[in-house]
Structures are given as C-alpha cells and as structure tokens.
C-alpha cells in the first residue's frame, strides 16, 4: 500500500475525528489539538498500519488512546464527589416511596429515515451536553471506551465500584428522560 498523506486524511476523516473527540472532551480547542496529534501520530506510525481495518478505524483507534491520555493528564483536576452529586433526586421523581414507577413509560418509535436519524443525533448530542461533566465522562470512558473499572474510578474520582455503577445508572436515567421529553414525546 502506498503512503497516504495526512493532508488527505484531514480532508477525509478530520470531521469524524473532531466529532469523536469533541463529544468526549467537550472543548473545541482540545478536540482540534487531539485531531492534529492523531494525524501526526498516524503519519509517524504509518508502517504499523496493516490494512486489516479501514484507515478511519485505525485513526479513531489512535485518537482513543490520545483521549484517555488527556484524561490521565487532567486527573488531578478532578474534584472529589460531593454528596449532593449522588443525591437520589434524579431517580426519586420517577419512583414512588416503595421504588415502583410513578409514570408509565411510553414505547419509543425509533428514528427510521436518515433525515430523522440526523435530527435525532442532534437532540441526543444536546442531551449529552446537558449532563454534568463527570456523568458524561463516565458514560464515554466506561460504556464506550471500556476503560477498566479501577482506572475509571481513579480518573473520575469515584471511591468505589459501587459508587461508579450507581452514578452510571443515574446518568442513563437522566439521558433517557431528556430524550423522552425532547424527542419521543414531540410527536
């Protein structure tokens, strides 16, 4: 395979890499820097590209490492969890005192056309951006990037696995609630 130019990668995959990074680091300048670092790393290690996956998949793989490195570098900025952060209120309003659902959940009509899908992705992105930072970080690092539990706790300031599980569950409750309100209930 001939050497590809990083400039071509920038044109072809720059936006995809940028979105991937921006969703996770939530800062435009940081996301831009990560795209640049990824393309440079790709250029330097091009001889390691085996062609088993597509170039874009390979570049996203490099970017994943860069993102986790970014979280490691900023680890010391992670504050200790405040008790109110773990407060029960997010769950409480959906359940009665005995822990049963207070409202009936409506069945979701999944987005079917491409147009719908794009609109839905916009809403989904908005709902993620409304999550508290730590919740969003947790959602991506643990459930998408599969960062091991101990490292996840360390990077995000959780004191126990259980605290992490409970927070992740509440993150999903919050996200589901937002999607339900802003997409599925808007007939």
């Amino acid at each position, binding site marked *: 395979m001939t050497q590809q130019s990083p400039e071509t990668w*920038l044109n072809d995959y720059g936006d995809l890499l940028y979105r991937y990074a921006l969703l996770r680091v939530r800062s435009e300048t940081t996301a831009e820097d990560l795209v640049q670092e990824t393309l440079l790393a790709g250029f330097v290690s091009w001889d390691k590209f085996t062609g088993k996956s597509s170039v874009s998949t390979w570049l996203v793989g490099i970017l994943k490492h860069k993102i986790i490195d970014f979280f490691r570098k900023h680890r010391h900025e992670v504050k200790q969890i405040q008790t109110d952060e773990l407060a029960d209120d997010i769950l409480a309003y959906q359940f009665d005192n005995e822990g049963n659902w207070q409202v009936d959940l409506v069945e979701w009509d999944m987005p079917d056309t491409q147009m719908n899908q794009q609109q839905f992705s916009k809403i*989904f*992105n908005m709902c993620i951006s409304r999550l508290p930072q730590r919740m969003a970080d947790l959602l991506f690092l643990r459930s998408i990037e599969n960062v091991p539990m101990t490292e996840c706790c360390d990077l995000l300031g959780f004191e126990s696995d259980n605290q992490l599980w409970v927070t992740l569950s509440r993150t999903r409750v919050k996200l589901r609630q937002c999607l339900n309100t802003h997409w599925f209930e808007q007939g």
Partner: protein
Amino acid sequence: MRHCKQIVDLVSQEMESKLPWSIRMEVKMHLLMCKNCHRYAKQLKFMQAELNTLEQNLNTVSLAEPAKERIKKTLTLAINESTND
C-alpha cells in the same frame, strides 16, 4: 424481591459487567412481568447503540476552517521535516 428502582440500576450494570447468575435470573423474571422496566431496558440498549455511532450521524458538527488550515500547516511542516532527514 427487588423493586423497579433497584432493577433499573441492575439493568444498567448488566450492560458493562457480568452479574451473578441468581441476580441475572431475577432481573430477567422481573423484565418479563414488568412492562415499564422492560421498556426501560429496551430503551437503554437503543441509547447505547446510538451512542456508539453518534460521531457518524452528527454531521452538523465539523472542524472550523481556521482550525483545519492550522492543522494542515502543522502537518505539512512535520512531513517536510521528516523527508529532509
């Protein structure tokens, strides 16, 4: 017997880790009998799949032109340096 609020947490945890067999069975049984938790579990799975491919569908977000130019310059510089070696 666990109530819905606890099942909701277990459904979430089950997506990431393997729960003990007895708990998995209890969740399964609960989901068979409880319409709300069943829907909740289904919606979580859907959310997870969407999250996995979000960057592909989010085409309203893209690199700003100035940033693109800046990155292009840095890349060209790095490539030239490496070929001069």
